[in-house]
């Protein structure tokens, strides 16, 4: 990423593209966006990485976190435009998801916290986090796919949320 930021190195960018494009594309598809739109959104995300590379600060966040937030914001914007609710006024969400400057924790500190949290979570909890918060599947859908009762999904999510609180001080 440094080479992209400093030298506008297109080869370096193509490496980022090769690694992230299929993962971002998969993220949109997992969020139930059709393949035509998912590729368009993937292009928008990686264009933003190229155009806004000067805004990325490696001390404040991991590169993957930064790309994730761009992809998530594109997803929000996409669902807003395709919403069944007829939004008369301009939706405000877009600006709410702009980068926060306040009380960001140091990247190194965040890394340690996540290691600790990951050690505490079992494999099923990690899968549930991914399904619920990354792929935004409903509790019902998670229960069906993992073949566990709905109540178990809910209580497992509750355990995760409690653990997060314990480990972030």
């Amino acid at each position, binding site marked *: 990423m440094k080479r992209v930021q400093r030298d506008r190195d297109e080869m370096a960018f193509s490496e980022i593209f090769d690694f992230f494009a299929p993962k971002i594309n998969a993220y949109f598809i997992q969020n139930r966006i059709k393949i035509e739109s998912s590729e368009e959104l*993937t292009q928008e995300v990686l264009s933003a990485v190229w155009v806004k590379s000067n805004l990325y600060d490696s001390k404040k966040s991991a590169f993957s*976190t930064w*790309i994730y937030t761009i992809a998530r914001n594109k997803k929000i914007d996409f669902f807003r435009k395709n919403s069944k609710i007829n939004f008369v006024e301009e939706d405000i969400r877009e600006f709410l*998801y*702009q980068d926060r400057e306040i009380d960001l924790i140091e990247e190194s500190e*965040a890394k340690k916290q996540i290691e600790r949290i990951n050690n505490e979570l079992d494999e099923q909890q990690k899968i549930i986090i991914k399904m619920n918060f990354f792929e935004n599947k409903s509790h019902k859908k998670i229960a069906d796919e993992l073949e566990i009762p709905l109540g178990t999904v809910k209580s497992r999510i509750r355990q995760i949320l409690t653990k997060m*609180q314990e480990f*972030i001080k």
Partner: protein
Amino acid sequence: MNGTIVKNELIFDFASGILGPAKSLLASTYLQLNSNASKIGNTFEKMLGENLMDNENIYPKNLKYSDCINGVNTKSASNLNDPVTSFFGNLNNLNWKQVYKGFREYTASIDDYDELKLIKMDPGVSVPLHSHGGKEYILVLEGSFCDEYGEYSKGDIQINDQNIKHTPIASNKTGCVCLSITEKEVIFFGRYGSFLNLFTFIKSFFKQK
């Protein structure tokens, strides 16, 4: 209802990008005012970023890296104000509506299923005992209030479900300004309860038009 869990759920849902506009505004303000909430939000975004790193690959068929370098994508909405000011403007200039003496509110016009309101209470003013049809979120923007469950100051959030009955009282010194979201109408009890219920009923009747 365990307060910590519902708070974290709000933060997680915000990081996941699945909240409607009203709750997004509340959550982003919460993260701005409350450093602990902000840290949890950061950490969670990082976890989701790691999910992205480890995600499966579905290769785009019609996309090359050069499309992203030459593609047009320069839209950037920079926003220096805090979310509440960006959305409402200067709070002193709002057309506040007095509900009763010392209690004013301003209902935002926002396209969402949830109702978004600003509430301003003068020092020492209380709200009659009430409970809620759906969840209620109250984020303190200025001053503080207390109720049967504790004291809430700037940056604190209280999330109430239908099982909670409470009587909030604004701080004697500062009063309070809060951002509130109600999922459904509030149900009042006590002396003025039936009158206030009638009032919210009539209000909701007109709102449907």
